[in-house]
């Protein structure tokens, strides 16, 4: 067993950290306050190649694999959850769906510009009546010669307000439902019939776009079917597995930041004549959190290694997302407590981190859904099929 990061991984982390400290950290508070997507940062990330971190070089990527992608997300999550979310929706699910099941032509036409950050992607799964129950979608696609005509809509689509390319799923055979009756498509947001209906006003990750999309006779050429007709749900679940792992990596960064702030404050703050660091109540909080952060780090990078070595990882990705989001939430909660009034003030980044952390327990499959994924895998090995 060897748990050390390779020289390549260390060099990548150094590059990402330098970028994040210089380009992302200075705007993190501002984009939250102004409710603004940092498109300039996204384009710069694209120019360096980082938006293609895990995609093959023949499609404009870096070829740094899932470990590289987790490093990017951890470092972004340390400084700005909004930027991590924009990047995660772009790479981890939007473009990832094309990476996992796209044809050669689709990868050259769509994945390459996405990997280079010349275009941005979103992932259209959730609908108003299909959240956790993702199979219950009602957006409909009907074949018309060489085209499909899509009608319906999607809600809570991260990057939806500015994405150039959206991978979405629609019902193509209502009789078959999720098993054989749902197909994935690649659509371009400037096609007639694609409309951004509204943007959500959210508690946290305010530097992101979360949009409602409406499709009104949106005509999609047949060559833009992603994967096989009827198997869209499989394509989307494969992309989500990747997204969940890297969301765990972003949570790792967030939790580490909360720990770092707390340690720094416990060193400097004095009450009753001694540093907070001398109080056992504080020591235990720090010790417990540091333990959880290390456990999360081990889980995230072990699963990333499993992806890079071609091993099955579905329930482990769910564990990354579940445990990562809960550790991150506990971490920011503890950071607020240790900082007291300072942690509650908008003048410090902890208040933003506290609001930002909550979403990770909800999106990319609620934590309840992650528990179902994990439990169903466990029980399946024992011959028990569980239904959600």
């Amino acid at each position: 067993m060897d748990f050390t990061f390779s020289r390549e991984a260390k060099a990548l982390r150094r590059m990402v950290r330098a970028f994040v400290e210089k380009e992302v950290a200075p705007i993190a508070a501002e984009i939250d306050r102004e409710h603004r997507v940092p498109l300039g940062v996204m384009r710069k990330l694209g120019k360096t190649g980082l938006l293609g971190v895990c995609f093959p070089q023949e499609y404009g990527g870096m070829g740094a694999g899932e470990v590289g992608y987790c490093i990017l997300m951890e470092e972004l999550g340390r400084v700005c959850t909004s930027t991590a979310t924009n990047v995660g929706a772009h790479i981890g699910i939007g473009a990832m769906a094309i990476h996992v099941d796209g044809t050669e032509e689709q990868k050259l036409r769509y994945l390459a510009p996405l990997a280079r950050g010349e275009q941005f992607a979103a992932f259209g799964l959730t609908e108003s009546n299909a959240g956790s129950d993702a199979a219950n979608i009602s957006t409909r696609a009907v074949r018309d010669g060489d085209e499909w005509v899509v009608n319906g809509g999607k809600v809570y689509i991260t990057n939806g307000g500015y994405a150039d390319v959206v991978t979405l799923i629609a019902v193509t055979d209502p009789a078959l439902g999720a098993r054989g009756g749902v197909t994935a498509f690649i659509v371009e947001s400037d096609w007639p019939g694609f409309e951004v209906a509204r943007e959500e006003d959210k508690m946290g990750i305010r530097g992101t776009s979360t949009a409602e999309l409406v499709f009104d006779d949106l005509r999609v050429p047949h060559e833009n079917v992603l994967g096989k007709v009827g198997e869209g749900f499989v394509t989307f679940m494969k992309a989500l597995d990747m997204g969940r792992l890297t969301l765990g990596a972003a949570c790792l960064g967030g939790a580490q930041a909360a720990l770092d702030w707390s340690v720094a404050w416990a060193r400097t703050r004095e009450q009753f004549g001694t540093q907070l660091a001398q109080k056992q109540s504080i020591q235990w909080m720090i010790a417990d959190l540091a333990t959880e952060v290390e456990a999360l780090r081990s889980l995230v990078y072990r699963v990333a290694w499993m992806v890079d070595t071609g091993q099955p990882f579905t329930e482990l990705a769910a564990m990354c997302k579940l445990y990562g989001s809960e550790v991150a939430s506990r971490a920011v909660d503890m950071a607020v407590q240790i900082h007291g009034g300072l942690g509650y003030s908008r003048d410090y980044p902890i208040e933003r981190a506290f609001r930002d952390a909550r979403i990770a327990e909800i999106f990319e499959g609620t934590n309840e859904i992650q528990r179902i994924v994990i439990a169903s895998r466990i029980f399946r090995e024992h011959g028990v099929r569980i239904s959600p």
Partner: protein
Amino acid sequence: MRILVILRRVLDPAGLVAHARLRRLFINREEYLIEPGDHAALEAALRIKDGGGAEVVVVSGQPEPDDDTLRRGLAMGADRAIYLSGAGFADADDGVAAEVLKATVERLGGADLVLVGMTRLDTGQAQLGPRLAGALGWPQIVGAWSVEIADGRIRAVRRDGDDYVIVETDLPAVVTVPAKALEPRYPDGARLINVYRGEGGMAEAVLQWDVADLMDPEGLVPLLEGRGRDFPPERERGVRVEGSIEEAAQAVAEALRGRRPG
């Protein structure tokens, strides 16, 4: 047009703690940076390459052959890297380094321009560029905030007090670049990965030359000798000034007047 850029590594000061009372330097995190002036010099070379084409060769002589310094240079866009191995060069003083680099330029079949950082972050020495220019017998520009090539001549902007001065010289030349002159670009992501994996032609881009093959190491006599480290005396504590703003300002002014030399 061939540009040689010298890349040295320095300890990241963020990983150091100087303990004045114990008179000791603690290395908490041993991380190395490309000397910031050299980093800016590489950026200057790459801008010339972007503008009109040039071959950019980076050269380094750090203790371990597997050092990251040259790889970072390649990832930023350098075409070739030369690692100078062999005893003595890594810790050489600037006089010895200049002789070795002169031999390197000759082995390379010449260069049109050598770029190097003006002042080292760690030792504060600023002799390498001028000594190398002396050894090569080339003109030099010290402290160039920007470097351009036009009509076979080099044109650089230097700072002179509060003014900027444009200076020109013929090629070949040696130019030194201050650390803050140019913002170095980020490495190219795919290149960075290829450099570490030795793919995409990156394995062939790295040459290893032994100093002993370039010249007779016996002839290299350092001008400087390190005899140990010491700390400056601890600073005296300041004085707290009490009273109203006017009284405090008066006290500060008097204290400053008392300190003025002469």
